[in-house]
């Protein structure tokens, strides 16, 4: 049976930076073994460590015990509890306190005497990522170990990640994009991760300055916009990787000029992982990762990923442009993506109309959703006696914050066209008239 070791890195290489302390692969393996010995006997484990190194050690320790890790990019207590309950978590690993329906362990990293590099079956489900289903419930997407390893190796080759490269991620380790680039990459691709949590432009600048060159910044269009807008100075970069939303050509050009490094984008989804990349300024053609097989037809597109059992349908429309490359034609009309998370407008509308006191309602996306990183959805609502604030408060319990409508337009009835269909145009005009 095929198997891969926990890490393919050499014992003396640096795999992570914790503050100013470089952690070698040998030390990492000793810490994993020590934590693994303390873990409960059965998984799955819900790992929501904010510290990226602790997230990695926790994942590796669980893996070496044959336990699956549940990854939730959404750290809200309600979502974590839903996943813990709904997907059989036996315990959780976290470096921050949280009230959950399962025991929560703190994964301190302290080395033991032994530092084995265990073999893990390629078919083992190492991690499960989640997306929001059409009614808001978490939907699981299993990641076999072999698929994760192949993805990390492919990405390292694609982006020229070498052993001595520092990788600063601004995306949580539990988001599939962050997991692949900042957890799996150091294990099997190359480079050394950064443990600390960075979010604001000054955090990013400070963390980069504390890391040895060459430096790779793994981020999002939203954070690139904030970095460029706040004009904080960054140390020299070897490269920038962006994902979660389309990056505008203008911003890519500005970033390349400001930081003197190529800006590349990853195209992917929680279900499939990273599947293609491009340098934004080289044009609209995406180059598939090694081994990916795309099926594109009039109905839509799907991708077969090495190690995944079935082709994964994509929520974008694709078109071949030659030389095995494709371009994105646009998203399927119902699917929206905000802050790195996807949702269905129909699903959000179902949640809205399910609220007590709401008689009718609909979610709509603005026309600039795909090009404006700050775009928000709007909702038109018919709910006599309810305020817009009350509608939002009720939605907050079931909808991720990024998808909460702004604005909410309260109406006596939804505008309909001549054939009785809800008029998106009329709602757009009401919502974004200012």
């Amino acid at each position, binding site marked *: 049976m095929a198997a891969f070791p926990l890490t393919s890195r050499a014992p003396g290489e640096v795999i992570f930076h914790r503050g100013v302390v470089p952690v070698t692969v040998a030390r990492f393996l000793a810490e994993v073994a020590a934590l693994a010995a303390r873990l409960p006997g059965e998984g799955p484990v819900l790992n929501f460590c904010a510290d990226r190194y602790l997230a990695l050690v926790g994942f590796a320790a669980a893996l070496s015990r044959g336990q699956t890790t549940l990854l939730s990019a959404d750290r809200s207590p309600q979502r974590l509890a839903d996943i813990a309950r709904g997907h059989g978590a036996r315990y959780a690993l976290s470096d921050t306190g949280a009230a959950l329906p399962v025991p929560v362990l703190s994964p301190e990293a302290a080395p033991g005497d032994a530092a084995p590099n265990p073999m893990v079956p390629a078919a083992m489900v190492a991690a499960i990522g989640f997306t929001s289903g059409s009614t808001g419930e978490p939907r699981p997407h299993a990641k076999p170990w072999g698929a994760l390893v192949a993805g990390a190796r492919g990405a390292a080759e694609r982006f020229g990640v070498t052993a001595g490269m520092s990788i600063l991620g601004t995306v949580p380790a539990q988001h599939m994009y962050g997991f692949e680039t900042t957890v799996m990459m150091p294990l099997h691709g190359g480079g050394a991760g950064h443990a600390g949590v960075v*979010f604001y432009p000054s955090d990013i600048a400070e963390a980069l300055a504390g890391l040895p060159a060459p430096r790779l910044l793994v981020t999002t269009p*939203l954070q690139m916009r904030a970095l460029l807008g*706040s004009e904080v100075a960054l140390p020299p970069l070897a490269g920038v990787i962006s994902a979660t939303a389309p990056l505008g050509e203008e911003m890519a050009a500005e970033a390349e000029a400001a930081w003197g490094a190529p800006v590349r984008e990853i195209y992917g989804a929680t279900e499939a992982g990273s599947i293609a990349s491009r340098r934004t300024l080289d044009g609209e053609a995406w180059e598939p990762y090694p081994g990916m097989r795309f099926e594109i037809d009039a109905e839509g597109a799907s991708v077969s990923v090495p190690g995944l059992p079935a082709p994964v349908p994509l929520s974008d429309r694709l078109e071949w442009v030659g030389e095995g490359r494709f371009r994105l034609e646009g998203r399927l009309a119902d699917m929206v993506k905000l802050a790195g998370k996807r949702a269905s407008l129909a699903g959000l509308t179902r949640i809205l109309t399910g609220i007590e006191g709401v008689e009718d309602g609909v979610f709509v996306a603005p026309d600039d959703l795909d090009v404006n990183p700050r775009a928000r959805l709007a909702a038109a609502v018919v709910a006599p006696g309810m305020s817009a604030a009350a509608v939002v408060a009720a939605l907050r319990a079931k909808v991720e914050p990024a998808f909460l409508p702004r604005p909410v337009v309260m109406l006596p009835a939804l505008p309909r066209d001549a054939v009785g269909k809800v008029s998106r145009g009329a709602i757009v005009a009401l919502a974004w008239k200012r």
Partner: protein
Amino acid sequence: MRHGGRPNLTTTLSLEAEVARLIVEALHLEVTAEEIDPEAPLFGEGLGLDSIDALEIALAVSRRYGFQLRSDDERNHRIFASLRALSAHIEKNRAS
């Protein structure tokens, strides 16, 4: 106007109103600046802001007041606890 040392009450109140306007403009909020309860939480249950908004506020603050917000964990929660807390933090750190 500042009178050196600690800000007086008038300065604090007018800065609070100014920051409220900055937030409403930067985030295209539905509410007016006057409607923001200075003691209510900005994130989650109160004004209902999220992480996209946090980046927007950081950007607006760096442009208007010439300093950068940072995420040193607990301190950051305090700074964003309310309009009043954020305004006090700006008063203490502003470069302009």
